């Protein structure tokens, strides 16, 4: 990956582009993520109902692909669906994937 595309994935987003956590249609819990780093952190914190809602709607992979522009991470999240994880299993696996990716990119960025 080029340094500039890594920097792009790690950037801080505008309010409009943040990820907003809901628990069901129209029910926003007040938590959002404005960067990949914060996204990883919030996955560890928000309730699992919210994680299940977005995961099975495909919201996470869509946001990661279209807003963060990290196609690789989007693919990994999508593949996780095959395991059909729920509740804490979903949280830990999603958290692992996203935080690992963040750490790798950060190291790459710092050189």
């Amino acid at each position, binding site marked *: 990956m080029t340094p500039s595309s890594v920097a792009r994935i790690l950037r801080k987003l505008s309010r*409009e582009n943040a990820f907003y956590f809901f628990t069901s249609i129209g029910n*926003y819990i007040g938590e959002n993520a404005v960067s990949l780093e914060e996204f990883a952190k919030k996955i560890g914190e928000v309730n699992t109902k919210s994680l299940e809602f977005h995961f099975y709607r495909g919201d996470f992979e869509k946001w990661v692909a279209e807003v963060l522009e990290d196609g690789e991470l989007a693919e990994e999240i999508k593949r996780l669906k095959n395991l059909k994880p729920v509740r804490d299993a979903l949280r830990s696996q999603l958290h692992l994937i996203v935080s690992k990716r963040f750490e790798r990119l950060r190291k790459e960025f710092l050189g």
Partner: protein
Amino acid sequence: MKLKKQAVSLDSLDWKILQALQENSKQTYTEIGRRFGVAHSTVYDRIKKMEENDVIKKYTTVVDLEKVGVKNITAIMTVFTDPKESENVAKRLSEASEVLEVSTSLSEELSIIAKVVAKDQDKLHSFIALGVAPLPGVLRIRTSIITRKYKEKELLIKRK
């Protein structure tokens, strides 16, 4: 300069005419006059006056959109905001065509209540996730989707 709102005073014939027009706005001056035993010119004068001072806001038609196959979903959205941003959020919501009604309200907490229509649940969610949650000052949103309407009417005018 903002004009001070002053209550227009209506007499009992004005109230009767308003009530008649609310029941059916297409009644003629003659029909209304006959009903209340006054000349059609009197009815005309009273109505013109109430139109001029904006007591009468609009003559409209109530349409059964479901009958013609328009199947929107309606939701009641409660938006909790930073009190300082409440007015801005209410104004921004009012600009959206998906939003039919917006009010600020007071219960145990301050909130904004809005009626929203959308083609389906996905469109509803997108509107809220992309158009409402990101507004500055929005803290939480609670949405209830209407499953069945039992009653829907305007406040009926009672004769004084």
